[in-house]
């Protein structure tokens, strides 16, 4: 694993935590897939979650917006504090939570029956919040997702008329239009070609000025390029977490080193 020598040092100045995970356990039925994970995700940063297939990284991500519990028999224990408020608590409404914690999936999944405009507006329209400056919000979201210039002349066209990379940025715009604070990305570029991937990575870099981003990725170069912090998961446990440069260049754990240098995984 070669880390680019010009990769900027992440700021290690004390930052405000956005999400604090404390002793998280997650289950599918009796099967435990996340074991005692504690992690602090700083505000307005990109936090990469890496690890081999089946290590629980996607499950971890889906705990953060409580999508995990939608699978029958799935549950999570422990605490996840979002701005100090336990989002696993009984007082937290998961539907409202998901408007604060947006999500982008592995495969682009635009709504096939809707136009480009309606896809971006879907979060507002489906929630009956389509009052006020809807087209302004749609435009802002598309601009932030770096898609506006490519689609501004055909907002009424079907979302399926876009290329795969454009569809994924459309899905990012759709998530941003709800104005979340946190954006969860589950291998957002794994179904894209290299050019589309680099566009999405540039976008992630731009987005962290406004949003806290948690990025699950299989691709270690991507984690090294795009993130400020990295956590390495293995067999449902958090092996090591820290500034990305440290994880890739100077890991404390041998398992981390073996993984980032490609000895297994």
């Amino acid at each position, binding site marked *: 694993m070669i880390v680019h020598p010009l990769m900027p040092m992440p700021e290690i100045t004390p930052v405000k935590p956005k999400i604090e995970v404390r002793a998280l356990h997650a289950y599918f039925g009796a099967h435990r897939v996340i074991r005692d994970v504690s992690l602090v995700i700083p505000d307005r940063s990109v936090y990469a979650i890496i690890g081999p297939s089946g290590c629980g990284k996607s499950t971890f991500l889906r705990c953060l917006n409580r999508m995990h519990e939608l699978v029958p028999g799935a549950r999570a224990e422990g605490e996840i504090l979002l701005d100090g408020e336990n989002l696993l608590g009984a007082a937290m409404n998961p539907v409202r939570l998901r408007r604060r914690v947006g999500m982008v999936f592995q495969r682009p999944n635009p709504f096939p*029956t809707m136009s480009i405009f309606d896809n971006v507006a879907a979060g507002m329209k489906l929630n009956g919040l389509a009052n006020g400056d809807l087209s302004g919000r749609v435009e802002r979201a598309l601009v932030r997702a770096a898609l506006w210039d490519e689609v501004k002349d055909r907002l009424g066209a079907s979302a399926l008329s876009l290329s795969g990379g454009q569809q994924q940025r459309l899905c990012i715009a759709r998530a941003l239009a709800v104005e979340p604070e946190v954006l969860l990305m589950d291998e957002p570029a794994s179904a894209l070609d290299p050019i589309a991937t680099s566009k999405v990575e540039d976008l992630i870099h731009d987005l962290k000025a406004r949003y806290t981003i948690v990025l699950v990725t299989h691709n270690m170069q991507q984690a090294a390029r795009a993130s400020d912090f990295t956590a390495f998961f293995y067999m449902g446990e958090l092996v090591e977490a820290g500034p990305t440069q440290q994880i890739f260049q100077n890991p404390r754990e041998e398992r981390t080193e073996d993984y980032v240098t490609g000895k297994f995984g």
Partner: protein
Amino acid sequence: MKTLRARQAVDVGATLACGLMVLLALAPLVSVLWLVISKGVAGLSPGFFVHRAAPPGEAGGGVGPAILGTFTMVAMACLVSLPLGIGAGAFLAERGQSLMGRAVRFTAEVLAGVPSIVVGVVAYAVLVVPLHRFSGLAGAFALSLVMIPPLARASEEFIRLVPGSLREASLALGVPAWRSSLKVVLRTALPGIVTASLLAVARAAGETAPLLFTALNNQYYNLRPDQPTASLTVQIYNFAISPYESWHAQAWTAALVLLLLVGILNLVARLTSRDRLRGAR
């Protein structure tokens, strides 16, 4: 190893055999079509669609009340069966593995297997006997029972075709589950559900047995749901079992009208489902 010539001979033989089977399978369909068209087309005229049945021996006459009755009863049946059938389909697609889901599926399968004459008997017992009269309402009730099982089954299939990732996308936007089901999943499956509904309507329009002793028949135009109501199928039956030559001719023409009606519905259903397949990709 067979020689090329031997394999070519097998190929020709198999192709011929398949072609023959296709012809055999098509023969009854074509002969039915041919019979109905050849015997019915002579009586076809604009007046046939609006006039009442002519007395035996008189020329002219038509099946106007029967067409209206079929339309009104099928429409009334739709009011009940579309929400119930599609709702059951949506439930089966989303909660089909639960105890309640298995119970609903079992019930739908049993109901689908009930002979339509039995459905007619049930409607007779439930509506005709207590109200002391044959009525379009009872006919519509019987038709709705015929329509619900295939509607539920087909709706479930079409809703299942909607990728789960779309529901997830909607839920992740903070849309409540019921709204995600309605506005994203059902909306995406809508063209398929329209197809399923049209096929169910076509099926109901062609039913005779559930109407025989529920809606009975009516010589006159009738829009009141509490009165006996004519239908194309029962009208054909009554014409056909009569001893009069002129009514036999009208039965053939009415059969042609029914065939056209059902055929058009099926055609429209096919066209909408073709659009659906295009949209899903």
